[in-house]
């Protein structure tokens, strides 16, 4: 029903087959209104923001700041708590160097989970090599439940950094509950929302976390834009690590006076065109309704799981999670062969370790095939996937 909003589905064919795009967890396709907005920006509003005392620059600034307030409303927070980054990875690295680096000492503990994406592991490992803090990983069940989180919190970690939704198992962590537990012992909670924002209502006030990061490109928006939410109390206390133009109120030969948050964290020319365009992705989501998107994806996921399980030798990981991310393997077949064969029918899935090697080894697998669903997918996409998989399995048996 929503496929027609996305021109890529009319524009791309492979050997005459329509595109069946089942890799939205990697990046979503873009609706026409977002694409139009990008063209419109460069044709009508392009000027560097903040600096010009002329109409065009004022207009571009207004569009950029409009996105900030749209995002703030979308998350139920205030604009001063929204910092633009390049993406989730950039946001986590920002927190690691701007916040955690000063907070952590040798011997401290940072708590992660086994289901984290590499972007929420590697930055911590790099910093830990410099500072000497410890990292522990909360174990995860095969279905994606955290095990013994309360026991790990007894070790009094300074920071817990955790994904909202797993990009492999599709399980949803109960962030409100986790934040309450962690805050009782004074532990800061950082949440990777990359796989949550496009299909779940995110109310940061009720989640209660201290930081929340995600990428625009995974929610119908342009690449190169990320959102970092940080609590005002924290952002106002910390100094920027990167300096440059437009983030200071005055510069002398001694030390500069920084602007307030979020401006002190956005030095130099920002990706203002893509940020400005990003508001139209939120418009698009609002036009459907985030609740309707959730319901649609849940329904389609349960259809997909049911159908996939009918294939001989196929095993779904985290089948009860139903949040649009379905990873599976098939006895005797390598995920890269499955993906290559599906591609022959213009079906795009992800194969490999999904930047989650710690989870893979805890699940005891070296690679999985993942199909991830979005609003533009429908039952016919699933039927085509299942038809092709059936054929593949038959060929090899």
């Amino acid at each position, binding site marked *: 029903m929503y496929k027609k909003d996305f021109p890529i589905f009319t524009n791309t064919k492979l050997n005459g087959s329509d595109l069946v795009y089942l890799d939205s967890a990697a990046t979503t396709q873009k609706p026409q209104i977002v694409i139009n907005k990008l063209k419109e920006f460069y044709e009508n509003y392009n000027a560097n923001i903040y600096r010009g005392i002329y109409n065009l620059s004022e207009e571009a600034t207004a569009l950029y700041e409009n996105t900030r307030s749209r995002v703030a409303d979308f998350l139920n927070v205030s604009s001063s708590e929204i910092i633009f980054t390049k993406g989730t990875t950039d946001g986590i690295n920002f927190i690691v160097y701007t916040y955690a680096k000063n907070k952590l000492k040798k011997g401290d503990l940072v708590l992660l989970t086994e289901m984290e994406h590499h972007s929420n592991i590697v930055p911590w490992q790099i910093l830990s090599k410099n500072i000497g803090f410890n990292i522990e990983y909360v174990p995860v069940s095969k279905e994606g439940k955290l095990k013994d989180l309360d026991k790990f919190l007894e070790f009094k970690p300074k920071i817990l950094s955790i994904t909202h939704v797993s990009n492999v198992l599709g399980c949803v962590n109960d962030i409100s509950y986790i934040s309450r537990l962690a805050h009782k012992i004074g532990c800061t909670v950082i949440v990777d929302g990359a796989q949550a924002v496009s299909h779940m209502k995110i109310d940061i006030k009720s989640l209660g976390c201290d930081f929340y990061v995600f990428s625009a490109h995974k929610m119908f928006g342009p690449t190169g834009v990320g959102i970092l939410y940080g609590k005002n109390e924290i952002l106002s206390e910390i100094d920027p690590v990167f300096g440059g133009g437009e983030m200071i109120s005055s510069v002398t030969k001694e030390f500069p006076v920084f602007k307030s948050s979020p401006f002190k964290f956005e030095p130099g020319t920002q990706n203002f065109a893509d940020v400005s365009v990003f508001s139209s992705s939120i418009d698009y989501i609002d036009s459907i309704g985030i609740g309707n998107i959730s319901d649609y994806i849940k329904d389609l996921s349960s259809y997909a799981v049911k159908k996939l399980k009918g294939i001989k030798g196929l095993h779904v990981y985290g089948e009860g999670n139903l949040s649009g991310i379905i990873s599976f393997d098939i006895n005797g077949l*390598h995920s890269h*062969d499955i993906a290559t064969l599906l591609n*022959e029918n213009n079906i795009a899935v992800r194969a490999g370790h999904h930047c989650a090697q710690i989870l893979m080894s805890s699940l005891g697998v070296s690679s999985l095939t993942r199909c991830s669903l979005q609003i533009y997918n429908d039952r016919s996409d699933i039927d085509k996937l299942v038809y092709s998989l059936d054929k593949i399995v038959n060929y090899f048996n």
Partner: protein
Amino acid sequence: MDNSSLLQSFIIEAYKNQKNKKSIDVYNIKQEGENALCGDTITFYINVVDDVIKDVGYDAKGCVISQVFTSVLSEYMVGKNWNKVLDEISFDDIYNTVGVSLSPTRLKCAKLPFETIKLALNKNMGHD
């Protein structure tokens, strides 16, 4: 399916009938190779007598592409001069024999057996 498909009969047949996917008791060259991206691994066991390859066995885990290319290369190798084994056949020759068309990522899988033999050759320079 056209003949560039991974499902063409040559590949399926070659995959199902890997003659040299076996352990051999007598060998004097053992070489492991790995493609970290896919997790493909191969171990070649090669018996060379008077410079001539008498027997090849291998153990391979991983995708169809890496296994089929390993199988085809191993069959070709038997009876050849070990030191010159890769002078007489190129990767392109085998690629054409198999006849599948591969994307750059999948080419790495196909090249794994060649890279593994190259490793062994470099180690065994001067083998008698």
